[in-house]
Structures are given as structure tokens and as C-alpha cells.
């Protein structure tokens, strides 16, 4: 009979405190909606950024008049350089074929091959790309860059783009984190406030319970359950709304845009489970806060 009694008591209390209960529930709902949207978004952007990072390469362009002997010398030089994992040689002929396929008219007009021989250098780790570049093309005191071999024309990387993507992801992550933290805080406080009101409304009952010898936990359980009910209700509604959103908006788009169906995002079932646990955790924290402060048993 214990559990039935607790459940009845907490539902009774929610009914009586309908408006604050609704506010707490809505706050949990909004928090979870934000979390539910942003967890996959952050995951997808992080995935995208990592993909870009893994594709980080350095292009070493030879001078257009470089001879095969120069190519061999530079290849050996690259082999001796630290942090180099892979060197791929693209001859001016291969480059020409490749580019002509992409843009036949332009190259037909051009007539001759303006492209240089190129080494594509993959670093052992993305962040070491700057070191390799500095080794091959050190800074000069006047501010520009020189090259270590006269046959090298220029050393270029795509680091700038990578940096942009990475910093954008970081901004998204930090903002989401802050937003989520604030919302969680608000939810905890709202749940805590609801429980506090409920405690206040039922202080007579608590007094009588203490009087007739109810144990501390017997007195606490209905309030804990009340909070958990509110959290769980908010959680269920949030998961339902997210499911509706996913089915109505995301799934049709996914067929057209491959980017949306990034394989790195969690499955919906796992996400729903995580959100439900978060909701109950937030609610339990909220009621615990009030019970510790206001229920002297």
C-alpha cells in the first residue's frame, strides 16, 4: 500500500498546485527541447569539422620549369621532414587531366598547361601542419616567406578554412552549453519552487505526519515523487514533440540533403532515453533542493 499512497498523495498535490506545477513542467519541457535539438546539431557539426580536419593537407607547388631531377630532390627533402605521414606526387600532366575534366572549355581555350608539379603532403596529425609548413617555407625577417629549395614555388595549406569551421563549431558548442546550463538551472529552480509551494501548502499534513510518527522518508517520498512526475511529464512531452518534429521536418529533408543525415548523430531512441533521464535528474535535484532547505524532519 505504500507506493499507492505516495503516488496518490503526490498527484493530489500536483492537482492542487496546478499552475506552478505547469510552469515547472513547461520549463523542463523547453530545456529538453533545446537539448534534444542541439545535441544532434553539435554532434553533426563536430563530425563535419573532424572530417575537414582529417582532410588537412599541404600543397607544395613546384616552379613550372622544374625538371624531374628537382622533383626527386624535393621528394627526398619531404621524406626527411618531421611530421610528414604521406607524400603524394601529382605531375603537371595529371593535374591538367584532372582540371580539364572539371572545366573542359576553359582548358581548351588555354591550349598549354599552366599547372605546376605538386606534392600533396599529409601531416601525421592535423595540428602539425604549421610545423611542416615552417620547415619547408620559413618566415623571413621582412615578413614574407621564403622556401628551402629553389625549385619550390610556394607552400600552401587549407588551414585557414579549417580554422574557420573549427571556431564556428566551438562557438556553437559553447553557446549551446551555456544555454543548456541556464535552462537546466531555471528548471531546477522552478521545480524546487513548486515543491516548496507544495511543502508550504501541506505543512499541516507534514506536522501531523511527524506527530503520529511517520518516518522522515515516508514524509519526503510524496514530494520527491511529485517532482519526478513533473520532470517525467515534461520529458515525455519533449520527446514526443521532438519525434513529431523529426518525422514531419527532418526525415523528408534528409532524403534530399545528405548533410542532415550525418552518421555521427545518436539514434533517436538513445537521445530520448538520455533526455528522459536528464528530465528526471533535473526534477529530482529540484525537489531535493527544497526538501533539504524547507523540510525539517
Amino acid at each position: 500500500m505504500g507506493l499507492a499512497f505516495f503516488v496518490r498523495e503526490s498527484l493530489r498535490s500536483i492537482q492542487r498546485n496546478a499552475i506552478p506545477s505547469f510552469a515547472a513542467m513547461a520549463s523542463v519541457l523547453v530545456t529538453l527541447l533545446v537539448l534534444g535539438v542541439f545535441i544532434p546539431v553539435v554532434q553533426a557539426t563536430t563530425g563535419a569539422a573532424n572530417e575537414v580536419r582529417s582532410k588537412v593537407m599541404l600543397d607544395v607547388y613546384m616552379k613550372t620549369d622544374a625538371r624531374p631531377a628537382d622533383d626527386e630532390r624535393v621528394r627526398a627533402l619531404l621524406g626527411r621532414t618531421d611530421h610528414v605521414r604521406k607524400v603524394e606526387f601529382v605531375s603537371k600532366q595529371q593535374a591538367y587531366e584532372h582540371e580539364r575534366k572539371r572545366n573542359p572549355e576553359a582548358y581548351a581555350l588555354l591550349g598549354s598547361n599552366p599547372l605546376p608539379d605538386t606534392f600533396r603532403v599529409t601531416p601525421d596529425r592535423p595540428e602539425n601542419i604549421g610545423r611542416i609548413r615552417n620547415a619547408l617555407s620559413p618566415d623571413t625577417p621582412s615578413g614574407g616567406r621564403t622556401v628551402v629549395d629553389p625549385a619550390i614555388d610556394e607552400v600552401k595549406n587549407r588551414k585557414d578554412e579549417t580554422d574557420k569551421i573549427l571556431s564556428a563549431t566551438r562557438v556553437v558548442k559553447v553557446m549551446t552549453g551555456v544555454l543548456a546550463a541556464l535552462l537546466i538551472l531555471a528548471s531546477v529552480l522552478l521545480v524546487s519552487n513548486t515543491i516548496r509551494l507544495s511543502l508550504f501548502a501541506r505543512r499541516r499534513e507534514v506536522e501531523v505526519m511527524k506527530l503520529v510518527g511517520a518516518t522522515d522518508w515516508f514524509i519526503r517520498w510524496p514530494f520527491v515523487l511529485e517532482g519526478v512526475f513533473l520532470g517525467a511529464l515534461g520529458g515525455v512531452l519533449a520527446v514526443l514533440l521532438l519525434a513529431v518534429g523529426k518525422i514531419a521536418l527532418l526525415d523528408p529533408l534528409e532524403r534530399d540533403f545528405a548533410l542532415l543525415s550525418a552518421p555521427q548523430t545518436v539514434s533517436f531512441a538513445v537521445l530520448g532515453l538520455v533526455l528522459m533521464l536528464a528530465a528526471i535528474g533535473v526534477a529530482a535535484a529540484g525537489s531535493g533542493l527544497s526538501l533539504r532547505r524547507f523540510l525539517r524532519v
Partner: protein
Amino acid sequence: MATVEADPRVLAAARSSAPAVVEFRGVSKRYGTDVGLFDATFTVGRGEFVFLVGATGSGKSTLMRLLLKELEPTAGAIRVAGRDLSELTRRRVPYYRRNIGMVFQDFKLLPNRTVYDNVAYALQVTGHSRREIREKVPDVLRLTGLSLKLHHYPDQLSGGEQQRVSVARAFVNHPPLLLADEPTGNLDPETSIGIMQLLYRINRTGSTVIVATHDSAMVDRMRRRVIELHTGRIVRDEATGLYAPQTTAEFRALLED
């Protein structure tokens, strides 16, 4: 202060050899510098009916709250049924309180529950089964004369009836000790007699009853043991006492003649 020059007359009259239900030995309670109770020593035997009298602030409520272990004494030892209360851990306090029925001046009923539910509540929160509740509640309501008011809410009852519900709730567990703090304080004399009779009937079933009261007429009529407190001290303990010390009562009787 000037009125109580008389020595405390501690009468250990005709007390049975039964073990003491309540035993206070040199118990003091200070609130900061204020004295709530000072060096109180007395015992209450099983099945006794004791009136606790004294002006407001004389320490009656302090004594009651010490017995409930709502307060801790600053000095001395309290034993209830032979058990030292200071050895009772916080976790055990609720179980200890199940052995004490408590009745208050303001009834402390739950306004949104019926008479039946108010009494059943005391059993529910102490983990009794539904069957026990169905058996015990009607019994105690019959004893208190509330059989016809089962489904009334407290605000549909008179003060006396509400206090009966409160007594029923205190007694539904058949506790060996029943404490009543000003049980008739809010009631008219006629109703008070009914409540007092009820407490007396409970006492006759074997429960020890301690009643703190201002109701001099009642104390004088019942002629039970009286412990008088004044500014935290026990100034009188008589086996069949009056509300006021004998001398003043005689004086009053003279005046009334």
C-alpha cells in the same frame, strides 16, 4: 513569583509498584538564558491520570515537547517506559512517537479529509495495512462517539466533535501514553466535560494520560493527580489535587459561600 512561597509538596501517595511510564530526573531546559524547565523530578506510573497545571510560560509545553523528543533537555535524564530518551537516535524518534498519542488545543486536523480519513491517516503514515485500518478506525470512532459523522469534513463539525476526532486519531494505535496539551482550551465547559470524560475512559483502558490544562473547574471536579509548574519549577505534586493549592481553594470556597 511572590505567590509561590510554599515549598513544593511532593506527594508520593499511594503510587502502585508498577514501573514508571514517565520518569524525569533533574531535568532542565534552557532557551538561551530563559529557563523553560528547571530541575524537574517526578515519575508517572502506568495507568495514571495526571493534570499538569500552571500559568502560560510555566513550562507545561516545554515538558510535553521534551516527552515527544521535539526538544533535548539541557540537563537531567528523561526515561519513558524505562528507556532513556537521550539514547534514542534521530532515526528511531518516529517509531518512539508511535507509542505516544498527542492531542492539541487547535485539534490539528487535516481540513481536506473526512473524519474517517483523518483518523485513518495516522495509521496510513505509520505503515498499517488496509485491513488493520478498516478494523481499527470504526472501533475508535465508536469509542469517541463519532460513528455518525464518518464522512463529515472537519469544518462541518463543532469544536467538541473536532476535538473528539483528534482524540480518536491520538488513540487509534492504543498508545500506552497519551499527552493532551490544553485539550479543552477552545471549548465551552459543557463540551469540555465530554472531552475529559473521553480522556478518562481512555485512561481506564490502561493508557497513561497526561493533560496540561488551565481548566480549573475540570481539575477540581476530577480530583486526580496534579503537578503544578511555576516559571519552570515543579511547585506542587498532589495525588488528588485541586487546580489551585488547597489554601486558595478554601479561600475561594469561603467567598462563594
